[in-house]
C-alpha cells in the first residue's frame, strides 16, 4: 500500500484568526450597539403589528406591483410579524458571529462498538436470563403465546368494520332509469331538444321529484353532459346512433379514468377534455379515448324525448360510470 503511506499529511487545524471585536474595545462596542439596534427594530415591528391589528379596517385594499390588490390589514400584520421575527433572528446571529467566542474546538469521538469483553458479558447475561425463563423447554407456552399475539391484532381491524357500509351494487348503479327526464344543472329545468343549439353543451342531472334532496353522492354518479352536433357528424354504429336524439348525445360527465368532471369541450375538434390528466374523448365516436391515460370511453346515456317533447333517458347507463374497480366486469 505504497499509496497510503505517501498521502499528503494532515497539517492540523489552522491557527485561529482573531476578529477585530476580540481585541479592539471600540469595535466590540460597535458590534454590541449593532446587535442592540437589531433587537430594537424587532420591538418596533411588534408595535407596528399590534397597531395594524387594531387600527386598519379589514376589507381595505392596497395595490402592490406583481401581487395586485392585497388586503391592507393582512399585509401590514404580516409584514410586522415578519420583521419582528426576522430582526430577532438577525440580532442573535450577529451577536454570535461578532461577539461570542468563535474558536473551533475539537472533541474526540469513540467507536460505538463495545469492548469484546463487554459484548460477551452482555450475550452471556441475555442467555442466562433467557435460560431462567426456559422458553426452550416450555414449547406449549411458546406456541400458545405466539397464537395469542398473532390473533390479538385482529380485534382493531374488526372494529374498523363500521367505518362504512359494504359497496354492494352502489358503484354500478346511478339514478338514471327509463323515462327519467334530463334537467339542467343548475336550475333543475327540464330540457327540450330546441333548447340546445348545434355546437353547444349542457350539464344535466336526473329529474328530482318534489321533496327529494339531491346529494353530492348523487351528483358524483349522475352528472351527464349533453352535446349537440349535426346528426351527420356522428360516426357511430346503429345502436349507439339510436341512443342519440336529433344530434344530441349524452355522456357521463364523470371521467372513466379517476372520476374528475370532464368539463372542457372543444367545439372545433369536438373533443371532450378532462383537466385532471388530459384524457381526451372524441364526441363523434362515442367518446372514444384519443389521448391520455383513460382506458375506456365515457359511458353513453341513451336518450330520446317523451310525449311532452322533453328529453328523457331511454334506459339507465348500461355500464358502471366513473373510475374502474375490481368488481367491474367490462
Amino acid at each position, binding site marked *: 500500500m505504497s499509496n497510503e503511506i505517501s498521502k499528503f499529511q494532515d497539517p492540523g*487545524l489552522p491557527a485561529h484568526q482573531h476578529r477585530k471585536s476580540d481585541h479592539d474595545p471600540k469595535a466590540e462596542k460597535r458590534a454590541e450597539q449593532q446587535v442592540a439596534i437589531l433587537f430594537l427594530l424587532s420591538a418596533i415591528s411588534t408595535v407596528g403589528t399590534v397597531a395594524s391589528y387594531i387600527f386598519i379596517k379589514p376589507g381595505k385594499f392596497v395595490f402592490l406591483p406583481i401581487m395586485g390588490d392585497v388586503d391592507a390589514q393582512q399585509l401590514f400584520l404580516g409584514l410586522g410579524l415578519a420583521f419582528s*421575527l426576522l430582526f430577532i433572528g438577525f440580532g442573535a446571529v450577529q451577536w454570535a458571529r461578532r461577539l461570542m467566542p468563535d474558536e473551533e474546538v475539537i472533541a474526540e469521538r469513540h467507536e460505538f462498538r463495545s469492548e469484546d469483553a463487554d459484548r460477551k458479558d452482555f450475550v452471556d447475561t441475555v442467555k442466562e436470563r433467557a435460560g431462567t425463563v426456559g422458553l426452550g423447554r416450555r414449547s406449549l407456552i411458546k406456541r400458545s403465546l405466539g397464537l395469542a399475539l398473532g390473533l390479538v391484532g385482529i380485534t382493531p381491524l374488526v372494529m374498523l368494520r363500521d367505518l362504512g357500509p359494504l359497496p354492494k351494487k352502489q358503484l354500478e348503479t346511478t339514478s338514471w332509469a327509463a323515462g327519467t327526464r334530463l334537467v339542467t344543472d343548475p336550475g333543475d329545468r327540464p330540457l327540450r331538444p330546441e333548447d340546445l343549439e348545434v355546437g353547444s353543451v349542457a350539464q344535466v342531472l336526473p329529474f328530482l321529484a318534489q321533496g327529494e334532496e339531491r346529494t353530492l353522492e348523487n351528483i358524483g354518479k349522475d352528472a351527464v353532459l349533453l352535446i349537440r352536433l349535426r346528426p351527420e357528424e356522428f360516426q357511430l354504429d346503429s345502436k349507439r346512433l339510436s341512443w342519440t336524439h336529433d344530434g344530441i348525445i349524452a355522456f357521463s*360527465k364523470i371521467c372513466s379514468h379517476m372520476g374528475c368532471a370532464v368539463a372542457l369541450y372543444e367545439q372545433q375538434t369536438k373533443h371532450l377534455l378532462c383537466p385532471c390528466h*388530459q384524457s381526451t374523448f372524441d364526441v363523434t365516436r362515442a367518446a372514444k379515448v384519443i389521448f391520455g391515460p383513460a382506458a375506456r370511453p365515457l359511458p353513453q346515456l341513451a336518450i330520446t324525448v317523451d310525449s311532452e317533447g322533453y328529453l328523457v333517458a331511454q334506459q339507465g347507463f348500461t355500464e358502471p360510470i366513473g373510475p374502474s374497480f375490481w368488481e367491474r366486469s367490462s
Partner: protein
Amino acid sequence: MKKSEKIAGNVANYVDERTGAAKWLKKNLTKVFPDHWSFMLGEVALYSFIILLFSGTFLTFWFDPSQRDVVYNGSYTPLADVKMSAAYASALHISFDVRGGLLMRQIHHWAALLFMAAMIAHLMRIFFTGAFRKPREANWLIGVGLVTLGIVEGFLGYSLPDDLLSGTGIRIAEAILQAIPVVGSYLAFFAFGGAFPGHVFIPRIYTVHVLLLPGIFLALITVHLMLVWYQKHTQYPGPGRTEKNVVGYPLMPVYMAKAGGFFFIVFGVTALLGAVASINPIWLYGPYTPGQISAGSQPDFYMGWLDGLVRMSPPLETHAFGHTISWNILIPGLIVPGILFTGMALYPFIESWMTGDKREHHLLDRPRNNPNRTALGAMSLAFMLVILINGGNDLIATHFHLTINQIMWFTRIAVFVVPPIVFVITKRLCLSLQRADREIVLHGRETGRLVMMPNGEFVEVHEELSAEKKFTLTQHEQPQALEVPTTDRSGVRNPQGIKGKLRARMSQAHVEQVPAPSQEEAKALEGGHH
C-alpha cells in the same frame, strides 16, 4: 454574587439534587457542532415543522371540520347564499372574518411547502455526502419515513378546506383506493363511509392531520435528533478533521445563538411570504361538487410528480374473468412510487453490500469522490424532474405555446432516456473534477500572471496550494473493488453464483476513481518544474 446568579444557582441545585443532571448537562452544553451551510437544511425542516404546529393550532380554533351543509353568509359577497360544507365556510371565515386569519392560513401553507422542500434538500445533502453510512442508517430510514409521511400530511392538509380544487384531489385519491385489486371498493367505502364523497371524510382526515400524523412526526423527529446528538454530527473533510474527532463550535453559546436566531429567521421568512405572496386562494375555486372542476388543477409541488406519472401512463386496463385491473392507476399511483421509496430506504444497505464496507464513517464524502453514488443520485433527480415537468404540462403548454400532446410524448420518452444520460454525464463530470483536483495539487493554481524566461519564453506562474488545501483535496480513500472468489476453499467454482458476479460488477463500477496524487508524485514533479 449577583442576584441573577444566585437564582440560577438555586434552580441548578434544585434540579441536580433530584436528577443528578449536572454532569450530563455540563458535558452536553459544551457539545461540539461542525458548521457548514448544508447542515442548516435539516434545521430549516425542523423549524418549519414547529411553525406548522403553531400556525396549525391557530387555525384549529376556527376551522370546523364538518361536511354538514350550510349556507354561506360571511363577508365574502361573491359566495353569498351559496350552499357549501361547514368546512369550506369556516375556511372562508378564517380568510375574511378573522383578523390575521388569512395570514395564518398562508403562513401555514408556505411553511408546509418549506417543510417539504427543506426535507428533500436535506435528504439530498445526506445522500450525496454519504452521511447515511454506518452508523447512521437508522436516521436515514427515519428521514425517508418523514418525507413519505410529509407528502401524506400535506395532501390531507390542503384537502381540509373542501374547496373545488381540494375535492378534486380527494376524488383522485378515492380512485386510487378503488383501483386496488380485490379489496379496493371495500377500502374506498370504509374510508368514505359509503359512496364518494359522503359526509365523514373531512372529519376523519382532520383527526389524522392535526393529531395522528403530527404525533408521529414529533416522535420520529425526537428520535432523529437524539441519534444525531448521541452519534455526533458528521463533518466535511479538512485539516484537523478525522474519523476520530469532531471539529466545530460548542453548543453554548455560539451554536445555541445561531440556531435560535435561525429559527426566528425561518419563521420571519414564512411570515413574509404569507404577507405578500397569496397561496391557495380557496374563495376563487368555490365549494366542492363532483360535477364541476376548476380548470388547470395543480397540486402542491410535492404531489406534482405523482400527478405527472399518472398523466403520462399509457391507457392500460385488464378485463378478465369478470374483473378489472387498472394498470393506468396502479402503476403510476402505487407501484412506481412504492419501488422508488423502497429503493431509497434500502440504499445504505445496498451500497454497503456492494462495497463490502462495514466500517463506521464520520467524515463526509465530497460528492465528486464517489462518482457512482453521485451519478445515481443525479439520475434519480432527473427522473423526478421529468415527471414533475409532466405534472405541470398544461401550464408549460400554455406558457411556451406547445401542445400537451407534444409535452406528453416528450416526457414519455424522456423518462426512460434522460436519467441514464444524466448518470453517464454526472459520472464523467465527477471523474474530471477529480482530475482537476489532481492537477492543481500537483501543479498549483493558475495565477494568470505570465513571466518571461531567460530564453524569451513566456510561462504562466503557478501558485502552490497551501498544505491545508492539498490535504483536503487528497485525503479521500482509494477504495478497491471486491474480488469475486472464483473457487472457494473446497474447490467449488464461483460459490456465490450470479449474485456474487453482480456484486463484483457493482463494486467495480462503484470504485472507479482518478488516483489521488501522492507526495512522491509531487516531489518528482518539483524537480522538473522550478
